[in-house]
């Protein structure tokens, strides 16, 4: 009697999470499956995306892939992972561009494009909606 109950609970949870997973707009950081990157800290991730660093912790060059300004993925990423508001990002890049000290990361239109580029280029890093992760990609845990 207990066992069957447990199975039912687990099964419901799985179904629910699946359902929710597909419906939720969770953004994950991804690299190519061949990328040597295993994990990154928030600070390291921020440095890469804010133009402060163009190398991975292990010394390999890295190219960040951004999504279209104003898109859901873009907003979520910058809010959850980088922790800066849009206004701050704007001001940051205004200064770097105006003073000629940096260029924003390359922007691609959507998740699929991001996934394609990242999958084919092991030296890139990007972020996509979790639903777009396939076997060519690996999720990078961010501490």
């Amino acid at each position: 009697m207990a066992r069957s109950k447990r199975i039912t609970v687990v099964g419901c949870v799985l179904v629910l999470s699946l359902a929710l997973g597909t419906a939720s707009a969770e953004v994950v950081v991804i690299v190519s499956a061949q990328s040597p990157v295993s994990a990154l800290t928030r600070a390291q991730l921020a440095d890469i995306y804010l133009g402060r660093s163009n190398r991975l912790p292990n010394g390999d060059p890295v190219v960040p892939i951004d999504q279209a300004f104003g898109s859901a993925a873009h907003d979520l990423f910058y809010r959850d992972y980088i922790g800066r508001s849009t206004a701050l990002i704007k001001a940051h890049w205004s200064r770097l561009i105006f003073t000629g000290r940096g260029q924003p990361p390359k922007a691609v239109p959507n998740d699929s494009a991001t996934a394609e580029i990242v999958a084919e280029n092991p030296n890139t890093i990007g972020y996509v909606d979790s639903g777009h992760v396939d076997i060519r990609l690996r999720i990078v845990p961010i501490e």
Partner: protein
Amino acid sequence: MPATPTLVQRWLHRLPEPPVLFSAIAVLVLAVIWSTTLYLAANEHAAGQRAAAALTADLTDTYEAQMVGALNVIDQTLLQVRYNLRTAPAHAVLREMGASGLLPHEFLFTVSIADADGEIIATTQPAAMESVAARDFFQRTREDRGMVIGLPRFHPETDEWRLHFSRRLEAADGGFGGSVMVSVHAGYFVSGYDPDALGKHGMLGLVGTDGIFRVRRTDDVVYAGDAIEYRSLVPDRAIDTASDAIEVKVNGWDGVRRYTTARKLFEFPLAIVVGLSDTEQLAQAKALVRTYLGRAAAASALLVALIALIGRLSWQLQKARARVAEEQVAYAKRLEYFAYHDSLTDLPNRAFFSRLLVQGMHQARRYERCLALLFLDLDRFKTINDTLGHKAGDELLQEVGRRLRGCIRDSDVIARLGGDEFVILLPEIAHATQAVPVTRKILAEVGKPYTLVGHEYRITVSIGISLFPNDGEDEQTLMKNADIAMYHAKEKGKNNFQFYSEQLSTDALEHLALESSLRNALQNDEFLLYYQAKLDLNSERITGMEALLHWQHPDLGLVAPMKFIPLAEETGLIVPIGRWVLETACRQNVAWQKAGFPALTMAVNLSARQFLDDHLLGDIAGVLRETGVEPCRLELEINERILIRNMERTLQILQGLKQMGVRLAIDDFGMGYTALSTLKPFAFDTIKIDGSFIQEVMRSAEGKRQTEALITLGRSLGQTVIAECVETVEQADFLRTHACDGIQGFHVHEPMPAAECAQRLHEQLLAAVAPRP
């Protein structure tokens, strides 16, 4: 050479004084501290200003480069889009260019294309689709061939100012074909504001040649749209920009005082404005200056405190030194005073007087005047000192000193020589007599009563006066002669004054010589006795002898009794001499007895000293014993004056003598008979009437009466009355008729040595009556 020193010289002269020196040093150091500080402060300030100016210049250069770069990117975009629009439609151009990365980042820049009517036909930002027909820049783009920079517009929905840059599109017919535009948020152009460099009150700005600020930023705040006087802000760019004038002025748009540079951009109708807040930039310098000033103030305060402290210590030291010096001087003065003054009377002492005397003599010698020296010796001071004690004696001396001081003038000198001796110097007297009034005054004053231990006492003073230059021309001589004169005054009965005379000196010398020979006379057997007979008037026979002491001086010859007996009395030598006289006289008497002469009474004089001597009775007893003479054969003649004094003792002695069995006679009877009535019960054996009365007997009736009375009185006191100094037969006759028992004198015979006397006695034996000479 100036007669009076200048102000500067006077102050220089005072420099070594501690207060002036310290003040000068303090001022000097303070001057150094402050001049250095102010110099450094000025330097710091100037450096700060220079740094601010330099930084402003630097920032301006950087900003200009950045701004030109940014504007060029925008312009390039416009030109490229316009170029591509020749061959492709608007949408395609934007898309292709975007994909190729030829468009600036779309999250900052929006690229749009508008048609001739101002409708947006293509844009990188789908939300920005509204018409630009009414926009200012669109109007200007119609006319302008270059890049048009629109006026800033505030978008409340995004809370930002936006700027539009546009270029004209040519229509196929050459007319206005629309515009290509790039819009960006105005803050972009001031996004490089570095708070570290520009601070919170600096500014970066972009102003159009039309005087409208396209954008400006101070700290975090972005402004746009302010209108300014362009020409007054931006200088003409005819000259090389390397020497931009950087003025410090108040920026009109926000009222902040800034180091401001405004530079027109080369290709664009814009000028950049860079400003650094005067207050902010110089804050550090000012803080540093304040530190310097604070340090200087602290150092100054410390210095002043230190100097004040040192000054105070120095002043205290000076005071202490001055006090010590004063004390030393006072001490020295006191020592000197005590060295020169008598502690009891406060009068000058001998040493001081000596100096003053010498001085006085010099003065007198110089001005040919005399001076008088008064030597004062208090009479019988010793008695008072012994009776009342030393304390009373001291008080007496002090009072005497005071009175003496009162008798003399300020120019006179008085000193205490010691004991009861004083000396007074009267300088500058013209004549000896001028000394007399002072001397008389002194005698009077000193003679007034003194109150000691509650009772009144009197003393007197003997004064000897010597004169300079008559009586001596040096200190010692004057003093000695005054002393001799004083001694003479004492001899003359005390309580008087005597002037010095040479005779006195001679007398004094004689006196001294005599005294010394007298001391040896007894040992040297220089004494001898002369005898004078007493004649009994009834029997006309010699009944007695009086022994008279003579001195055979080796040099002076025979010295009469009155010359040396007083001296003997004074020196006390009379006692041993008197004893010798007694002995010799008694022996002689015994010898005459043995020679067969009839019994005689030997009379010997007793002086006051002998009479009062403690050993008198013992000595007489001894003589009687040794010589073997019968007591009734010895008669002691005692002067009436001696008997009057000290009645009690006199009676005692007389009793004792009487008990021994010797005869007693009153000598020189006549003066004090009143007092003698007390001796009445005593019954003297002989009364000898004083010679002075006998001399008067034949001269006056008074004399006769007196003598008569004396004989009567004498009878009442004694058994026998003898007259002295009988010289004439008339006197003898008178006395005989007036019941006088005996006579003595030249009429009988003069005093003669024992041998001659014996001769006379012998003659008497042979004759019944004493032969007349």
